[in-house]
């Protein structure tokens, strides 16, 4: 017992000695020396540049370091859009082409232009500074010119997409999932609206089934009283919201219901992406 106590006491003594005297420490850090003795450093310019040092410096600078690639959503470039409704635009195209019974309407784009020129006139009256509103061709004018010239569908598609690439704003529902302008929907709608202006009935709602529509799904959802068929559609390459509306409802005008039903997924009607699973509402 006493041996153990003495041994423990001796051990404690040695430990205390080690703590106090620190025989293995690498010398105390001298706080006075921490900043180093002041040394005059002179910055000079050499007459000739040390090319090799420069090369070495740029080499180290450009050596690729490990970059962690953040996962990001690849998005396609999309044409500019404005608030002009495709139906208004088509109406004006028909009116301009001389269809009987079609009166031109003021599109939202024209309203915006008008209000802008009013604002500029107000500022000009106050400051005396003249400012000009650029005259650039509207999408409507480009389509009218192409139709008047009797262009083929392929060349209209090219003309329209070239114009969109140059910053001409297009109606939102014509923007496809791969960032192009859906000319086929635009032309099909011109034909539909022309027929309706001539007194024909609106196109019937087509019968669609998952067998002949790629990307379509039908699920039966059980409700309290009855079973409801819920329809879904996965966006394919080249789809626009107008095209999906025609596919399921025969006309473009139901794009609004589709957009409303999928607001959580679509921030605006032109932000449609391949692979998105859209709910197709019952009309």
């Amino acid at each position, binding site marked *: 017992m006493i041996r153990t106590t003495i041994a423990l006491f001796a051990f404690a003594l040695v430990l205390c000695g080690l703590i106090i005297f620190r025989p293995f420490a690498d010398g105390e850090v001298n706080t006075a020396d921490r900043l180093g003795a002041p040394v005059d450093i002179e910055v000079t310019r050499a007459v000739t540049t040390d090319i090799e040092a420069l090369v070495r410096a740029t080499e180290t600078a450009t050596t690729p370091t490990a970059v962690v690639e953040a996962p990001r959503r690849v998005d396609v470039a999309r044409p500019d859009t404005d608030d002009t409704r495709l139906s208004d635009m088509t109406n004006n195209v028909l009116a301009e082409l001389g269809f009987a019974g079609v009166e031109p309407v003021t599109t939202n*784009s024209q309203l915006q232009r008008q*209000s*802008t020129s*009013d*604002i*500029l006139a107000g*500022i000009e009256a106050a400051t005396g*500074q003249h400012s*000009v509103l650029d005259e650039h061709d509207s999408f409507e004018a480009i389509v009218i010119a192409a139709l008047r010239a009797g262009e083929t569908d392929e060349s209209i598609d090219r003309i329209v997409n070239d114009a969109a690439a140059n910053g001409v704003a297009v109606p939102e529902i014509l923007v496809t999932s791969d960032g192009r302008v859906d000319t086929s929907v635009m032309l099909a709608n011109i034909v539909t609206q022309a027929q309706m202006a001539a007194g024909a009935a609106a196109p019937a709602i087509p019968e669609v089934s998952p067998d002949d529509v790629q990307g379509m799904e039908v699920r039966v959802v059980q409700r309290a009283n009855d079973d409801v068929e819920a329809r879904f559609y996965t966006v394919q390459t080249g789809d626009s919201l107008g095209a999906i509306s025609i596919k399921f409802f025969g006309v473009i005008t139901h794009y609004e219901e589709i957009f409303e039903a999928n607001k959580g997924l679509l921030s605006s009607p032109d932000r449609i992406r391949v692979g998105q699973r859209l709910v197709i509402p019952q009309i």
Partner: protein
Amino acid sequence: MNRTAFACTLIGLATVSAAETFPVTEDAVFTFQGEEIVISRTSVIAPATITALTQISATCAAPCLSPMTITENVATLGELDVIQFLSSKVETGDGLLVDARNPDQRTGGIIPASVNIPATTVSPENPYRNEIIMALGAEQFEGIFDFSEAMSLVVFDAGPATQDAQTLIFDLLGAGYPPEKIAYYRGGIQVWTTLGLTTAEAPQ
């Protein structure tokens, strides 16, 4: 002493004739578009006008009250500051008093020398936004604006319970407009009119 006498005379006059106008400050006179404009106060305001101005906006479900400071570095002004701005910067052509309401709201009367730029027209969605910003004196070079020559702006709207001025100011700041060139008159047409300050008819 003189001032008290003057004030007493004014009060006396006011009681004699009901609809008397008072000068606001000595500098509340300025030239705009070659016309001399005097900002004064009238002692009588038609109750119908007040009723029309204090209608709660149908578009704003929440209380919609604007904070005193809408954002850092954008000063909030009172009526005297606005009058001071009109008789200095607006008169010399270095500033613009901007009405952010919709044109149809302006038919009820405007602050003299104010210019209408409706709230949403400077949003990035408007394809003509750049033209408006350039009309305010900004220079554009390869898609980048230079605001060194841009005008100082004081923005107001219907009143402290509408958000139009804030929308416009945030869109201007978003376009790069320097905050020190923008000020916010929180009272708007509502406070301006209920104080009996001079209003003008909107130009056609």
